[in-house]
């Protein structure tokens, strides 16, 4: 393909990606009357009312705080327990390692719909229902296997001579692991964290099932508003727009790692 048309493909693709997002953002600056009344490509009566409502009403802004809390807890738990496990998988052979690895992956394949009801019962029985930790733990179901999988790929790319030299130099295992090994695979940890953040942030079914008031995620606030107050589309669009921002931030920070990270690791 000649150079002149090559840039067209990504450009058209990105335009296609941006159109619905543009529509969402533009709608968030419109009044309800304008949305339902006249069709316009951009807001005619520009308003910030929708955003003001979200930032002043605690049921709205608490939703964001709740979501961020459980996402961060989940990312920290997933990556920190996955690190030693991935090291074990990449460096050692042990009884049942292959089966264990596949079993872990099968949990990534479990449809959340299958687990919705039993999760509700399990977390009610343990008294964790409607807490941030419940959602964070539940999301471990699919994020830990993913983190192990990604990290194992990165670790297998690091030559074993690195470990051996460090031990010869008199490093203890944990000192080597923390001081040398973790910095070596920083890119891999970045990619793993990105994926854990992503899957926990976007998941709704389990998060909604496991919370009622105190830990209700923003996504659940939105669906409940959509069903109770009817057609407040402007408000819904504003809430939706705000959910894109944390994701955009995370991508911006890991943007250099993603391309480099994917290339190094196996994912």
């Amino acid at each position: 393909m000649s150079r002149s048309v090559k840039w067209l493909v990504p450009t058209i693709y990105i335009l296609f990606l941006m159109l619905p997002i543009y529509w969402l953002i533009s709608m968030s600056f419109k009044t309800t009357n304008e949305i339902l009344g006249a069709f316009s490509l951009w807001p005619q009566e520009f308003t910030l009312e929708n955003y003001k409502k979200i930032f002043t009403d605690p049921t709205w802004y608490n939703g964001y705080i709740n979501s961020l809390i459980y996402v961060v807890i989940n990312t920290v738990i997933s990556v920190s327990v996955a690190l030693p496990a991935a090291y074990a998988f990449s460096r050692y052979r042990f009884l049942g390692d292959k089966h264990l690895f596949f079993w872990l992956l099968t949990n990534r394949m479990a449809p959340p719909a299958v687990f919705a009801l039993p999760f509700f019962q399990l977390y009610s029985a343990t008294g964790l229902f409607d807490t941030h930790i419940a959602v964070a733990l539940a999301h471990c179901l699919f994020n830990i296997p993913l983190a192990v999988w990604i990290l194992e790929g990165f670790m297998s790319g690091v030559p074993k001579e690195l470990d051996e030299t460090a031990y010869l130099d008199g490093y203890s295992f944990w000192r080597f692991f923390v001081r040398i090994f973790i910095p070596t695979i920083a890119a891999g940890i970045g990619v793993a964290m990105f994926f854990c953040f992503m899957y926990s942030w976007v998941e709704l079914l389990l998060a909604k099932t496991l919370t009622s008031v105190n830990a209700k995620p923003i996504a659940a606030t939105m669906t409940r508003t959509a069903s109770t107050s009817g057609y407040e589309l402007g408000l819904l669009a504003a809430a939706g727009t705000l959910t894109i921002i944390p994701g955009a931030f995370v991508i911006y920070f890991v943007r250099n790692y993603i391309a480099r990270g994917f290339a190094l690791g196996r994912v």
Partner: protein
Amino acid sequence: MNKLSNQRAWLFVVPVVLLVAFNALIPLMTVVNYSVQETFGNNQFFWHGVGWFEQVLKSERFHASLLRQLAFTTMILLIEVPLGIAVALCMPRKGPWVSVCLVLMALPLLIPWNVVGAMWNIFALPDIGLLGKMINGLGIDYNFTQQPVAAWVTTVLMDVWHWTSLVVLLTYAGLCSIPDAYYQAARIDGASGWAVFRFIQLPKLNRVLTIAILLRFMDSFMIYTEPFVLTGGGPGNTTTFLSIDLVKIALGQFDLGPAAAMSLIYFMVVLLVCWIFYTAMMRNEGQS
């Protein structure tokens, strides 16, 4: 890499196993428990054997939603994988535009799934949505809330919008890891663009593409939130995929037995396909 045999490595794996087992085994056993029992309320349960499994496997409703699910997954794989490869091939390799492309393309991946559904809903509505207005403006009668075909097209388009970027990112990373020497050798041999793709890039992408297909298969097979918010499974039952149907039975009608049996069959289907993929992938790796 030849690995050392070391049973103490289990100690490193224990936290992961405990956490995942808590989340996976206990609920799974609950599901198994429900799937073989009949209840008449009041928390009284009776042994029901494999009755629920027979009922689910024979039910028209399950066949229909399984068929819809398979059709949907096949369609999006056939669209997203070639499209993703094409976009990745055309992306710049260096320069300031790389970051811009990557950030903008990754954006749909980080939007909560219900927001994706809601966004496409207001984007495609025929009276207030940009897409709906545009299609109707072209003279095509389009209303995804009433026409099954339009609902399918919208759902597939939404998924393409949402997930093609994952294939792009993975493929792009795979392409970046191909050493320049390969391309130089191809240039010396006078290879055509197609030959470079067929004999250099595609074999090198083997691994990332397997992962991309595996991830897309799993996620599309479990899809729930986006079509639920977009169409609610309608019009009629035309976009009721497996997860939507399952949640309807389990949480809507509270038919625990059939729902549990259906869950297990559903899970088995996903497992079987993934096991085939996984084995194929591991065998490939063993060869190379």
